């Protein structure tokens, strides 16, 4: 035991002797871990956030498709769906997008409906459903400097302006789902977008038994072939793929830089200098075994790689959860005009961290130990003579 502690002590003292080289390696190594861990932490947190957001989402939504595009749905479709055994309630939804010239923002406009009850609990003010009133998200409130009582002018599809009075603002905490949202009454919605009374945007289908959702979706598709039933699971899978794709895209963007760093670190770490070879020769000649030299190099590699790993990982954590992932978020969050200024919850996937550890620390240790091993198994006088 004492022997190993002494070798560890000597390893640390050796690292300190070559502090400039080693600090350089630690810096580069930490930077790689920082980039990789930032992407992993951010992607995983986004996925978790998406799952959390979708928790309150309907199990099944049905949209009408025309020529491969989302089209308005006639209200008669609701009656056909209601008749399917196992279907609880069918709720029509009215929603769309509105481009606001004055702020250059794209808003999501939604008419109030029964399923919004939970959402209406997270706001300041009161929405009574009175015509000409609206609820707005924090992003819109910030962009338009709107407070409760402010008037939001909306240009309808007929070119005329409707003046909606702000009666409520969603809370800051709900930004991720309400940032660019405007809730209005169904009457105002139909008026602004000139939507016929017999049409809805899509329908929410409540199913008694959640395990039957896929069966119900299949039946809806059979009865109404021009519809697209979307289950919550499908959305979750889409989010998963989307964030995987985006993290892959960011990784690709950084691949060149990461590769350059890896080559630099590899070169620094694996190139055994003449001085180091000589030192190994000295140690061997004065009675150090090959295994002792290996242990010394193992400790050196472990100290450098663990220090770099921890620095990079902690840096990545701070970057993602304290500084809002300022480096990568534009690529990973998406391209909506009003970016939600939300703070991610710190979710960590231990499996990913372990994989990252094995993908970086182990290759580094191997890269540093192998050349030392080659020098250490040679006769000491050969190593010392160079």
């Amino acid at each position, binding site marked *: 035991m004492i022997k190993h502690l002494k070798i560890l002590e000597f390893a640390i003292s050796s690292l300190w002797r070559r502090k400039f080289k080693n600090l350089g390696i630690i810096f580069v190594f930490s930077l790689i871990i920082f980039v990789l861990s930032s992407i992993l932490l951010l992607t995983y947190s986004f996925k978790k956030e998406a799952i959390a957001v979708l928790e309150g989402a309907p199990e099944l939504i049905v949209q009408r498709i025309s020529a491969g595009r989302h089209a308005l749905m006639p209200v008669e479709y609701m009656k056909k769906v209601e008749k399917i055994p196992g279907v609880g309630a069918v709720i029509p939804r009215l929603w769309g997008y509105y481009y606001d010239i004055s702020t250059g923002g794209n808003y999501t406009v939604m008419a109030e409906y029964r399923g919004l009850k939970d959402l209406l609990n997270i706001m300041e003010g009161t929405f009574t459903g009175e015509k000409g009133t609206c609820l707005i998200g924090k992003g819109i409130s910030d962009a338009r400097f709107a407070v409760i009582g402010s008037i939001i002018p909306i240009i309808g599809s007929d070119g005329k302006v409707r003046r909606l009075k702000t009666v409520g603002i969603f809370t800051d905490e709900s930004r991720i789902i309400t940032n660019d949202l405007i809730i209005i009454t169904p009457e105002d919605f139909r008026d602004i977008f000139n939507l016929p009374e017999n049409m809805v945007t899509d329908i929410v289908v409540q199913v008694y038994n959640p395990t039957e959702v896929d069966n119900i979706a299949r039946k809806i598709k059979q009865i109404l072939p021009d519809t697209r039933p979307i289950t919550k699971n499908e959305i979750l899978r889409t989010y998963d793929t989307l964030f995987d794709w985006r993290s892959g895209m960011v990784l690709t963007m950084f691949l060149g830089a990461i590769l350059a760093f890896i080559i630099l670190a590899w070169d620094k770490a694996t190139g055994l200098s003449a001085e180091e070879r000589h030192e190994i020769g000295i140690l061997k000649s*004065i009675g150090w*075994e090959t295994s002792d030299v290996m242990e010394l190099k193992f400790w050196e590699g472990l100290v450098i790689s663990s220090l770099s790993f921890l620095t990079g990982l902690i840096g990545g954590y701070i970057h993602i959860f304290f500084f809002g992932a300022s480096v990568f978020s534009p690529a990973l969050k998406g391209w909506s005009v009003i970016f939600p200024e939300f703070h991610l919850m710190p979710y960590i996937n231990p499996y990913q961290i372990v994989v990252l550890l094995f993908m970086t620390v182990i290759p580094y240790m191997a890269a540093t130990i192998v050349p030392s091993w080659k020098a250490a198994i040679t006769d000491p006088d050969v190593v010392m003579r160079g």
Partner: protein
Amino acid sequence: METIIRVEKASKCINRGRPNEIWPVKDVSLQIHRGEVVVLKGPSGSGKTSLLSLIGCMSRPTEGRILIHGRDVAKLPERFLTDIRRRLFGFIFQQFNLIQGITVRENIMLPLYPTERSFRDMKNKAEELMKSLGIIERQHFRVKGLSGGEQQRVAIARALINDPEVVLADEPTAHLDTKLSKDLIEILRRLKGEGKTIVIATHDPLVYEQDIVDRIIEMRDGRIR
């Protein structure tokens, strides 16, 4: 007299089978007895250092045998050779071969790091040696700041910290002036008095003409003359 080391028809080849193949040691046989001071004498390139390496188990002979206490070490696995090097030999190198960035004391203690001896024990032994060699006040200095003579003493202290039976010295006066060389001879004399066996590779008359030398083995072109 007890024979500690026996070399039987040992040869060493470097770069065997290549155009630059050389035989620094060729067909050498000799014996070294306990308590003897033996000088390997010869010009540069005569094979003294290579023979010293073979004797000290730092390299293996290409042909022939090296027997330490009657046991052929040439075919032993590397681990056993290291063990013999650590227990039996203390090396004093021509270039001192100290690790430049660490202190005098750390350099001296270096052979004891991969052992189970405690730090305190190592420190005490190192201090004892530093006192006897007159470098105690330099113990916290980094070796690169020391004079040649001081570095030589550090190298001697390091060679002695394992309390070896045999001290091997390769051109120990090569980088010393006359006074420092004489000081070194006195240290070697003291070691002989303590019963150490000493093998010195040198072509310096200041060393091989000393009365402490029991035997001179002359070498040329890798062979004993």
